[in-house]
């Protein structure tokens, strides 16, 4: 446990140094941030918008805004800060949808992938399971799906999720709890 803490501290120190260099205008340092977090941002954006083109655009814009505003980043979780920029861009996009500016339905929703398994039965089982999860997530209310996505896909802590969404930790926990309860109903045969 102590060893893991040491590794995390070292990673945190390295990231702090990268941020400091970015704040001094070092674009090469920002490349490190892009390469570390662009997949997380793009994936999160897709899971929130269900549209590859918008996800691509959102993640790029979030990174551009992060570069332009990184001088205002004053410590804490860089990942949560980036996610926060993305979430707000995402909300902005969905609001524009209300004005008829765009249609976010995406016909190219990625299908669940089979795991790398030699056992066809196991692979089929995995596909079916992933399809069930995808369907269960789709029927979650937006606020609950957001929290689940940030916690389990973006791998943010409860505190980081709260920061990214601009809500209290207690709210994150209650949304997560409600989401898990719904997912339990959809994914697990109740044995109570």
């Amino acid at each position, binding site marked *: 446990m102590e060893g893991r803490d040491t590794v995390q501290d070292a990673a945190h120190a390295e990231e702090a140094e990268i941020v400091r260099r970015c704040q001094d205008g070092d674009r090469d340092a*920002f490349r490190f941030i*892009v390469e570390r977090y662009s997949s997380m941002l793009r994936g999160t954006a897709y899971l929130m918008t269900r549209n590859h083109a918008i996800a691509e655009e959102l993640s790029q814009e979030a990174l551009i805004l992060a570069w332009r505003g990184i001088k205002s980043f004053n410590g804490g979780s860089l990942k949560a800060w980036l996610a926060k920029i993305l979430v707000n*861009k995402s909300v902005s996009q969905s609001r524009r949808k209300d*004005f008829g500016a765009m249609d976010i339905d995406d016909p190219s929703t990625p299908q669940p*992938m089979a795991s790398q398994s030699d056992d066809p039965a196991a692979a089929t089982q995995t596909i079916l399971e992933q399809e069930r999860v995808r369907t269960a997530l789709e029927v979650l209310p937006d606020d609950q799906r957001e929290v689940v996505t940030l916690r389990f896909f973006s791998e943010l802590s409860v505190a980081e999720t709260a920061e990214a969404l601009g809500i209290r930790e207690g709210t994150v926990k209650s949304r997560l709890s409600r989401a898990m309860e719904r997912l339990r109903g959809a994914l697990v045969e109740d044995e*109570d």
Partner: protein
Amino acid sequence: MAREQNYNEVERQLRGYFDAQREELKAPADMWSRLSGELGEQAPTSWWHRIDVSSWLRTVQPVYAGAAMIAVVAVGVVTYASFSGDSSSDATFSTAAAIKTESAAAPLAPGEPGSEEVKGVAGLPSLPGEPGPPEVSSLEMATADDGASAPVAAAAAAPPAPATTKTPDSSADSRVALAFGEPQIFLEPLIDVMLDGQRLFSITLPPDWAIGGPRTAATGWEGTLVRLDDGFFLSYQGGTSVVGDIADVLGSDGDKHVISEETIGGFSAQLIQPIGDEEGVTAVLLQLPEGSMLVIGQNLNAEQQQIAFAIFRSIQPG
């Protein structure tokens, strides 16, 4: 116990699903080459970040830091007391908002040398419950016939600072501040927002704000104004077929908003804010010779509404 096992099973399935998605949804390998040319200039650091109190506190003995903080608080209290003891200065703040240079000791009043009145500009939205001045003639109440909501509408529309002035040369390098008591909003110099070499509009933003876009949209062009500290943002869009009428923006919620009319940047504009609480739309709709421009925020609190209105009033369409 069974329930706990069920939750573990749900978590296992979620993690399996998201692991697979992580592979599927990877960013393109050439992300950096796509981005590097688009990064642009970094926004300057705000005064709060420049003084970097947190790192100072980490390096100073706690007793000295505590003493310094107490001294700062004491100076603040004395300053506040000296201002609040003079009722006439309160009146000035509540009735005469002014854009001034940051170094100016006091807001410029209308007609004062060095100031230029902006015609037709009504006051900023007042904080909920904050009394405004008696005259609100330049504002039109969307729900004035509603006996219950009219007083609320008047309170919401009654500006703490109706008359607005600005320095003659707003393109100078010095930042400007829109002063209306608390909070004081500092705006950076005008920024030209360009698309394909054409100036769409100019706007002033507080420090730590960034402009997302503009980019071409189905309706014309669009983008976002974002406060990077907390993600508070406003969306903007413009073009020939954006929004022709404010009713298109508010839909059935028209009676929950106050609409005032002003001239902004030489064009007719409608300012919208929610009545009474934070639920609703804060927006400006400018009617332009070729189309319209809409800047909009949703569910903004009182402070955010004031900042939004300050930004709205700085717009100069291209």
